């Protein structure tokens, strides 16, 4: 039996007020899977994600996360919904004036009634899970780009969200660090059962981590293909094959 989707996107118009990029796209994300949103530059990948995490108002259509419509949720219901999701931004978006531990503890300080020691324990565990034990007292400016992204994942997971969104996790990383980050995402997804939604165009990451993907296209103003990465790579559709082939040629 197919499980109930944790994210349901229906007839979503992607874009900004006065500028629409994609028309009426729809897809489902299932619990525990690593889902990829792919496409070339400017095709609306990150904008789609911004709609999904509530940063951009919907131009049309609906997005439900764990059964709650993100555009209709108000007040306490919206706060509850936001606690179900975590986001890792492209550059990590860690607070520069706080240590890594303080960064990860911040959501716990605001949204739980645990004691300081208990919050520290939860935050320390998060940092250990992403391999940053021993760096708790470091400032974001003192660590590498890959470590900053791992710390950002730890912060995104602080409140035990059901879905973690990752915006271009491989951007700016060397292939080895990028592969390590992919392994971390995979381990967290498989062990903790977290659903990951990943915006990317890195072919290596896609094949290593993504269970299913959608390929967005600016010209088609919608989803060009949907399925497992290997299926899409062998797609008879020349536009889909071109995306994977060009990426493959460009990959190191």
């Amino acid at each position: 039996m197919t499980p109930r989707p944790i994210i349901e996107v229906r007839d979503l118009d992607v874009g900004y007020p006065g500028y629409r990029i994609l028309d009426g796209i729809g897809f489902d994300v299932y619990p525990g899977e690593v889902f990829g949103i792919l496409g070339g530059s400017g095709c609306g990948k990150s904008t789609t994600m911004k709609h999904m995490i509530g940063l951009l108002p919907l131009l049309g259509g609906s997005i439900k996360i764990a059964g709650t419509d993100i555009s209709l949720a108000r007040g306490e219901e919206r706060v509850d919904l936001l606690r179900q999701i975590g986001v890792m931004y492209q550059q990590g978006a860690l607070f520069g004036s706080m240590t890594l531990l303080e960064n990860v503890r911040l959501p716990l300080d605001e949204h739980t009634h645990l004691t300081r020691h208990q919050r520290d324990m939860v935050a320390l565990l998060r940092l250990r899970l992403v391999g940053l034990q021993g760096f708790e007292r470091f400032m974001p400016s003192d660590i590498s780009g890959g470590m900053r992204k791992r710390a950002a994942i730890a912060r995104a997971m602080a409140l035990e969200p059901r879905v973690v969104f990752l915006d271009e996790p491989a951007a700016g990383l060397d292939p080895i660090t990028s592969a390590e980050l992919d392994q971390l995402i995979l381990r967290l997804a498989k062990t903790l059962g977290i659903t990951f939604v990943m915006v990317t165009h890195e072919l290596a990451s896609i094949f290593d981590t993504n269970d299913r993907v959608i390929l967005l296209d600016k010209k088609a103003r919608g989803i060009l293909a949907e399925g497992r990465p290997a299926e899409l790579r062998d797609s008879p559709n020349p536009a889909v094959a071109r995306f994977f082939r060009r990426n493959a040629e460009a990959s190191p």
Partner: protein
Amino acid sequence: MPAPDASASIDLSVVGDSASPRTLRLRGRLDKCTVETIWTRACQALPRSGDVRIDAAELEYLDGFGVALLHDLTQIQRRRGGSVSIHGLAPDQQAFLDLAELDQDLQTPSPRPPERSFPQLVGLRTTELWHDARSLLTYLGSIVAGTATAALRPHRTPWSEVFERCTTAGAFALPVVSVIGFLLGWVMGFSAAFIMHDYGADTLLAALIGPAMVRELGPLMTSVVFAARSGSAFAAEIGTMKVNEEVDALTTMGLDPIRFLVVPKIIAGVLMTPLLAVFANVAGIVGGALVSRFVLDQPLVVYTNLLRDVLTPTDIALGMVKALVFGALVAGIGCIRGLQTAANPTAVGKSTTSAVVTGIVFIAIADAILAMVVQVLGI
């Protein structure tokens, strides 16, 4: 792994209190919704020594919050010389626990470094001040050299950038400088008017307002506004460029950041501050004139005639020289603070604050030095 359920509960019971090892049984869901209710109780249920067995066979769900609690229990008991063993976990829960490495303590963060003693603080601040002074002097040297080069080779100066700076730091500052100048003249005149009236000096207000504004207050106030408005902007702009590695990019392209970023701002400061001071002086004198006319009831010509008599070209030149020196100092310090910005986002804020504070301090120091020079020269 099932999703968290806000209505779920966790049950903790101690099995065979006196038995060794003591057994704690967990039933239900140990997650972010329930962990708060049993954390303290679970810690209190641990024996003072010896081993502990946790029976988790009836644990339906375990998340990161629950694992953090299990970590805490394990650490506490390990410190007491005992150990904690967990039995009956479902395979996915066991996999999570393996990932969390329960056998290694989670380092509780070490406390912040202890407060420094007073002598240590004095020493530290003195060293910082010394380093800051050296750095300021080094940059000052580069800026003087850069400006001299610009003067010798004017065709290499980015003049479009200079005009842009003159517009933003000069023309756009005119309203605020004029308003403050006018109010300064008005308030000074108003404060003095009643005392002057008591002593029968109703006709002499221009002798106070004119030289005070032109020689001292006009240039001083204009420079303070310039520091707050433009010195801070220079520091923020160059500081942000430093954080974004744009300054490094200029250097590696073989372009001198001083010539590209600093010299146009210094030229704008040197040109615009005296001009702004002229407007501040005029506005202040007009403010005083209104007090003379409407508060002291003197004809306007009394005020203007006296002004013509008391104000000498030397006063005006002295005021302009002061404004020029202050303007160069404020622009230079704004740029230096920007270039000294460290590579983190909070550093830009610090540089901006420092640009304004240092700028005003240097205005005061320069003013005192100029006052002494004027005294010695008998101007």
